[in-house]
């Protein structure tokens, strides 16, 4: 091939287009991102530094100034010995209760919702769409409306004030959005796969368990994240339906934060707050990437 061209003009543009690192575009772009990030980080920053300050320092100092003397006492107190009423056992009791509620609730609510989504995508029957529509409307019903009748329903089922009860409640309230997620996801799975499995003789459950489940990881990640944060942060259902011996961590948090023993112990409050939020936060930090990917994998279609 001829080489005349390359000789003509080395003075002319050649090679990669020169890029300025500090272009207007980059300034605007990163400026915007950084300002936004500051807004989002500010509360976390305040929570953390406050939780590490002693009370006198809080009273005198500026909310935003870093602690002069770092103390972990508030964390220890929040976890171990913060009081509500007569008990000074901190959050630690509630933590395990929360875990006790979280695990079965997450598993059962996601299990049922995923079966719903699967049935609604591959095994439609007469009226299945109507149920789905009602289910979606259900997402808009304020919890409070259902609080009362659900107390009565649970009483009749002998599930009130039990782990089973609160699991059922989380299953009910998680169902609309989760079913929507799973249905949209399964809608993007090729129907041929389903047909192939049927020709292979697999039935409803086997197709679900052996074919669909293993390929639904992304959407399960999304569902798990949503449920873990939702259930972990729940206060109302836990306190009403779970029974005293199962009070979740948020109940203790509420008690610690809302009861003042003389001076408001902001540092303990903040530490308690952070401790309560730790588990969902960790879940997010670990799986944030999977979360976005999972949403992209079908949750937002249609």
């Amino acid at each position, binding site marked *: 091939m001829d080489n005349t061209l390359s000789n003509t003009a080395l003075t002319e543009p050649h090679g990669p287009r020169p890029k300025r690192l500090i272009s207007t575009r980059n300034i605007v772009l990163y400026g915007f*991102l950084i300002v936004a990030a500051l807004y989002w980080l500010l509360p976390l920053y305040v929570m953390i530094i406050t939780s590490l300050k002693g009370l006198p320092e809080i009273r005198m100092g500026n909310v935003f100034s870093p602690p002069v003397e770092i103390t972990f006492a508030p964390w220890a107190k929040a976890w171990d010995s913060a009081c509500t009423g007569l008990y000074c056992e901190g959050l630690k009791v509630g933590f395990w209760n929360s875990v006790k509620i979280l695990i079965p609730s997450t598993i059962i609510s996601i299990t049922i919702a995923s079966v719903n989504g699967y049935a609604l995508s591959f095994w439609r029957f007469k009226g299945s769409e109507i149920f789905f529509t009602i289910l979606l409307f259900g997402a808009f019903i304020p919890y409070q409306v259902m609080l009362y009748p659900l107390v009565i329903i649970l009483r009749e089922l002998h599930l009130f004030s039990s782990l089973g009860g609160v699991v059922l409640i989380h299953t009910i309230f998680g169902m609309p959005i989760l079913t929507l997620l799973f249905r949209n996801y399964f809608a993007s799975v090729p129907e041929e796969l389903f047909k192939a499995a049927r020709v292979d003789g697999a039935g409803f459950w086997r197709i679900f368990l052996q074919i669909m489940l293993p390929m639904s990881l992304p959407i399960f990640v999304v569902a798990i994240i949503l449920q873990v944060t939702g259930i972990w942060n729940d206060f109302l259902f836990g306190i009403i339906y779970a029974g005293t011996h199962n009070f979740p961590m948020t109940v203790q948090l509420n008690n610690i934060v809302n009861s003042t023993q003389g001076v408001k112990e902001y540092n303990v409050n903040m530490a308690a707050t952070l401790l309560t939020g730790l588990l969902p936060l960790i879940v997010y930090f670990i799986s944030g990437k999977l979360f976005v990917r999972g*949403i992209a994998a079908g949750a937002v*279609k249609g």
Partner: protein
Amino acid sequence: MSNNLTNQQAPASEATGRQRRHPLLRNLSAKIAAIPMVLVTLVGFVGCSVWSIVYSFTSSKSLPRETFVGLKQYDRLFDSSRWQASVENVAIYGVCSLVFSLGVGFLLAVAMDQKIRFENTFRTIFLYPFALSFIVTGLVWQWLLNGDFGIAQVIRDIGFTNFEFNILSDREYSIYAIVIAGLWQGTGFVMALMLAGLRGIDQDIWKAARVDGIPAWRTYLFIVIPMMKPVFITTLVIIASGIVKVFDLVVALTDGGPGVSSELPAKYVYDWMFGRGNLGQALAASTVMLSTVLIILIPWAYLEYSQKKDATHG
């Protein structure tokens, strides 16, 4: 075509195949598997809604009683200035959080989609508040927005000694404090949804627009946003269902105050249902909320549904 088969129905008599199943028994496992959903929709959602509508016509106090009083609860509801304030507030809160969380969420997603550095970090930063409970959000923002020692104090410390910023105790603006905290919590999730949507756009569209010389902002505005309609709809459903139900945040942040200036309908329902023992009034309020939602949703769902039908036929 060969028609000899029709004469040859013989195989039918000799072969005894399985008979046609009864319609109810077809798809049996699917129907069994759907029982929880059917129960939840019928007993849970429909049942509870009907229950609450029925008892909204009674004078039930702490406990449901069949003492029907016609529209009395509704008369009182619509006369109540707190209810009016609540409706007004939910409108403000709804519009603001819709506009800003969609707007800011989309902008953030766009920024994140520019092949930036530290994308993971930024995404986590925007997303983490979604992991926190409203109690936490309320507490933190109550603090930050405190006129005495919150952000306002910092600005005063910087030198603007006369700076006053105390929307928490300003009845005109207290609802915006809730908006600010709500946005802080929820926008990250919207961003994640939008980002997923953006990533789903055909790369060729971008190239086509560049060849056409269409500036990026116009591409977003006129091409990409319309293409992301399904994402916007999913997001809208999620945000809107959150708006209707917002409760914990108000309780934690302002408790409806000062006065009744930041009350919201869900709290109205809650207060009367439990704190103030007037179930009928609470249920009347919730019925109004429910029917508003239905009035908005049904035409929309109908439109969506009929449009989809058209699309498959066209």
